[in-house]
């Protein structure tokens, strides 16, 4: 294909050359020969004419004197002219006068000819015929006819043709030569270029170049341009390849990134799942924590408050003024702490969505009265006048306890922030479908910029004149409580003209049973020693409640005996009083279920009834049996007995607390006593030594750092003595222990507690494990 093409190009060149030169030559020859033929023919005609003229003039006399022989003689001279075929002389009238033929058999002149001829010639059948009048001295004397063949012309033509052929041949040879030169100059570079182009297109090899032409001509420009183009293509291709490689690399990088991102994403989703699980677990822990905390925090605080309260009662001896003041401080601090804890727990519960409301119809006026009674002492302390204003039929749908909590919070705030001698007004009114409750004070008012923020948790009004105690949570809880009820808490205040906190609650169409309300109210009290009063008769219940509350007990009323077991499980009261004649569950049944349930079996039960069957009560596990009508002293004594019974442990040997710090010693003693253990104390080593020597204790709680004789010394002595080698010892210390000491203690004692940790519960747990409390005994 390629070879054929190159052949075709050089062939074409050759052919072109030869065609051009041949055509030019042929045209030139033709023109030349044509021209020559024409002129030659004209010359022939002229020659013929001349001949005829000569013959004519030479035959004039013959004509004139009628001598054909003479004319024939003259004509016969034409034998010398080979081309003359025949000739004739005619008289003026056209009659043949004399004739001549070179070959008579072939050619002969016509016998007559038209008279009055002018000179003319014509070509007939490859002959020239010339007719000419013979004029002698201006007179037409005759006519001459002469016919010549064109042999000479043909001969000449043949000669020309042969010459032209030779010249043509020579020219073509020359053209061939020239074209071979051209081929070298033109075709070869093109062929080379084509070869390079073929290689380039076939092999995609852009690095080769066409050989540059030696001369500067269009071909050289073409080759240069081609080479330049190749260079550009090469460059472009290189750039393209580079770009392609880069792209590929980038694609790979991106793919890798994507894969890693995918991996990260998967890992992330796994971690999210883990986080979710952790969150769920944490949420579960939080719930557990909240429920634990409500006990764990409140229990010791209750102890603090209880003890301090006990102290103020001066039951165990009179206190001087200072003692009184301190105990009051303890009590106040404890109460504040309790409130704070309660608030935090409440808020946490609300935030966690775990606060459940016991919605019922609550008479507003009653709640107002109760709250006002509770708050009045506080108000009176600051000489405030507390005004309550609510119509009797007004009631809301709310949790009664929470409703009163809200009211107390708002009134407490009003009391706190109103300067002495102010007025606090509590008012409620129907407002369409809702009840609007307002707590208005005559305080300094709240600046607008603080009005929104005061509802945030831990926010406290910027009061400089006097630091007011409070948790900073009250309003936040209040707001959330109101909102939980489906209401709205708001504030209208102008600086200098007091504040008005208001909230709305859905109104309730009517009253509910009184007992439902009372059962609710009872819940708030009695953390110190809660007595669950199961009594479906309201009057009896109230009587019992007033006696017990007056004696300082917390009372929880339960008007629905079917719920009593449930409440006992929840509340874990110190004692339960119950009637027997109740519906739908009677007292016997309830007593049996309480005593048969492990969670409530150990709660003392006091039967308060008109049924005089103490034996049955004993049989069924009742701890006390009081027959109505209830005497206050009898009741309280029975309760006291029950409480004592529950707290009393009667071991043969006491728990020895060796502690030099008085308060700690006292606290541990109280803690253990409360758990029902008998406690003896030793303030230092020698005392402990002597006590153990005289009477072996059940267990020793030993501090390591003691005056005179250290705990390690005591321990070593006791372990070396066979009598005391097996004496259980718990170590409770604030000392930083070396690993060696720790090892020693672990080997020689039953447990190690460190004071900077939470040791109390652990101690008690361990103690209970080591020394079970003595079972209760009946009095």
């Amino acid at each position: 294909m390629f070879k054929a093409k190159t052949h075709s190009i050089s062939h074409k060149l050759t052919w072109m050359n030869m065609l051009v030169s041949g055509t030019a030559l042929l045209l030139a020859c033709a023109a030349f020969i044509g021209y020559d033929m024409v002129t030659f023919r004209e010359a022939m005609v002229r020659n013929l004419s001349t001949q005829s003229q000569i013959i004519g003039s030479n035959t004039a006399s013959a004509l004139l004197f009628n001598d054909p022989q003479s004319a024939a003689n003259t004509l016969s001279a034409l034998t010398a002219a080979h081309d003359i075929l025949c000739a004739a002389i005619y008289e003026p009238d056209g009659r043949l006068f004399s004739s001549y033929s070179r070959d008579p058999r072939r050619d002969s002149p016509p016998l007559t000819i038209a008279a009055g001829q002018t000179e003319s010639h014509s070509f007939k059948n490859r002959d020239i015929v010339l007719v000419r009048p013979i004029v002698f001295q201006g007179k037409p004397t005759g006519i001459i006819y002469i016919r010549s063949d064109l042999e000479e012309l043909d001969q000449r033509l043949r000669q020309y043709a042969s010459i032209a052929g030779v010249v043509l041949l020579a020219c073509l040879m020359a053209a061939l030569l020239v074209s071979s030169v051209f081929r070298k100059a033109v075709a070869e570079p093109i062929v080379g270029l084509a070869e390079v182009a073929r290689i380039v297109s076939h092999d995609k090899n852009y690095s080769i170049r066409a050989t540059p032409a030696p001369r500067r001509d269009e071909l050289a420009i073409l080759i240069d341009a081609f080479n330049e183009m190749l260079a550009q293509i090469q460059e472009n291709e290189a750039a393209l390849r580079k770009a392609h490689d880069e792209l590929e690399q980038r694609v790979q990088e991106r793919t890798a990134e994507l894969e890693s991102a995918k991996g990260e994403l998967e890992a992330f989703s796994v971690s999210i799942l883990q986080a979710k699980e952790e969150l769920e677990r944490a949420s579960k822990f939080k719930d557990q924590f909240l429920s634990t905390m409500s006990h764990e925090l409140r229990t010791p605080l209750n102890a603090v408050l209880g003890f301090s309260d006990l102290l103020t009662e001066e039951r165990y001896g009179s206190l001087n003024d200072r003692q009184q003041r301190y105990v009051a401080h303890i009590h106040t601090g404890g109460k504040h702490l309790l409130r704070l804890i309660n608030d935090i727990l409440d808020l946490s519960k609300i935030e966690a969505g775990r606060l459940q409301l016991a919605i019922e119809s609550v008479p507003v006026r009653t709640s107002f009265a109760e709250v006002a009674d509770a708050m009045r002492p506080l108000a009176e302390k600051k000489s405030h006048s507390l005004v309550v204003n609510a119509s009797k039929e007004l009631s809301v749908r709310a949790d009664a306890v929470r409703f009163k909590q809200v009211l107390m919070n708002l009134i407490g705030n009003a009391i706190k922030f109103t300067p002495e001698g102010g007025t606090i007004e509590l008012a409620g009114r129907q407002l369409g479908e809702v009840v609007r409750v307002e707590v208005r004070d005559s305080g300094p008012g709240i600046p607008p910029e603080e009005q929104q923020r005061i509802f945030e948790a831990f926010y406290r009004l910027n009061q400089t004149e006097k630091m007011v105690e409070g948790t900073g949570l009250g309003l936040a809880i209040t707001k959330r409580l109101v909102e939980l009820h489906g209401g709205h808490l708001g504030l209208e205040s102008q600086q200098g003209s007091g504040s008005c906190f208001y909230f709305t609650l859905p109104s309730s169409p009517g009253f509910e049973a009184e007992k439902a309300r009372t059962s609710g109210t009872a819940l708030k009290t009695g953390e110190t020693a809660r007595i669950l009063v199961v009594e479906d008769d309201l009057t009896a219940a109230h009587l019992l409640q007033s006696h017990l509350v007056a004696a300082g007990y917390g009372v929880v009323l339960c008007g629905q005996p079917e719920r009593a077991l449930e409440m006992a499980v929840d509340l874990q009261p110190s004692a339960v009083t119950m009637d027997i004649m109740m519906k739908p569950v009677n007292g016997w049944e309830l007593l049996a279920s309480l005593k048969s349930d492990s969670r409530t079996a150990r709660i003392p039960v006091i039967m308060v009834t008109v049924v005089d069957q103490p034996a049955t009560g004993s049989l069924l596990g009742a701890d006390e049996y009081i027959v109505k009508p209830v005497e206050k002293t009898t009741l309280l004594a029975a309760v006291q007995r029950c409480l004592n019974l529950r707290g009393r442990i009667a071991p043969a040997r006491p728990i020895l607390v060796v502690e030099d710090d008085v308060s700690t010693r006292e606290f541990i003693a109280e803690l253990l006593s409360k758990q029902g253990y008998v406690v003896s104390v030793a303030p230092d080593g020698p005392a402990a030594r002597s006590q153990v020597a005289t009477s072996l204790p059940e267990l020793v709680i030993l501090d390591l750092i003691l005056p005179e004789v250290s705990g390690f010394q005591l321990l070593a002595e006791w372990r070396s003595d066979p009598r005391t080698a097996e004496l259980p010892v718990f170590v409770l210390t604030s000392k930083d222990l070396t690993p060696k000491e720790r090892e020693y203690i672990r080997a020689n004692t039953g447990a190690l507690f460190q004071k900077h940790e939470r040791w109390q519960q652990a101690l008690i747990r361990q103690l209970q494990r080591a020394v079970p409390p003595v079972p209760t005994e009946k009095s």
Partner: protein
Amino acid sequence: MTRFHSSASDRRAPHNRAFNHHPRLWQCLTAIIVILAFLCFPVLHAQQPRPNEYQVKAAYLFNFGRFVKWPTAPTAGKDGSFMVCVLGQDPFGAILDSTLAGEDLDGKRVVTRRISKPQDAGTCRILFISSEEETHLKEILSALDEEGVLTVSDMPGFSRRGGMIQFFMDGNRIRFEINLASTQNARLTLSSELLKVAAAVRKSAGPGD
């Protein structure tokens, strides 16, 4: 390629044949016309009266004038005409006049004249001597000596006797012979053409000399 060419020429061939046919047709027609013309010719020829002897001789007289060059002629006629004279009895009659009427010779108007005496022939260029004057020929010729007059006669022995051109009958044809010596004596130059058509040319003087 070759096939295409040949087919093209094949296609052209019938046309060529057609063109060749037509000239032949015309040639046939021409031939027929020519034959018809020849058939008609004898009829036309026969209708023309055959020229008599003196008609031809009159024409010859004129023609002689065309081939002869006269010396500068002091003998030219007074009126400058070219005189053709007949001496003696005129055999031509009116024929001569009609033949020569309106003709020119040597740039002059030809005029015929009849003379009776040789002395009158001084102004003549061509003198036809009647055969009736045979007896006086010697005198006539001598009278005309060196006068530059071309003498013509049809009397027998005329050129032999010193005359210049003598007619004679050669069958039906009228021919003539020339005495070149006589013409040279008369200082006349005769064209070779004339000599060529003469039946005989006598170069010596008359035998009588």
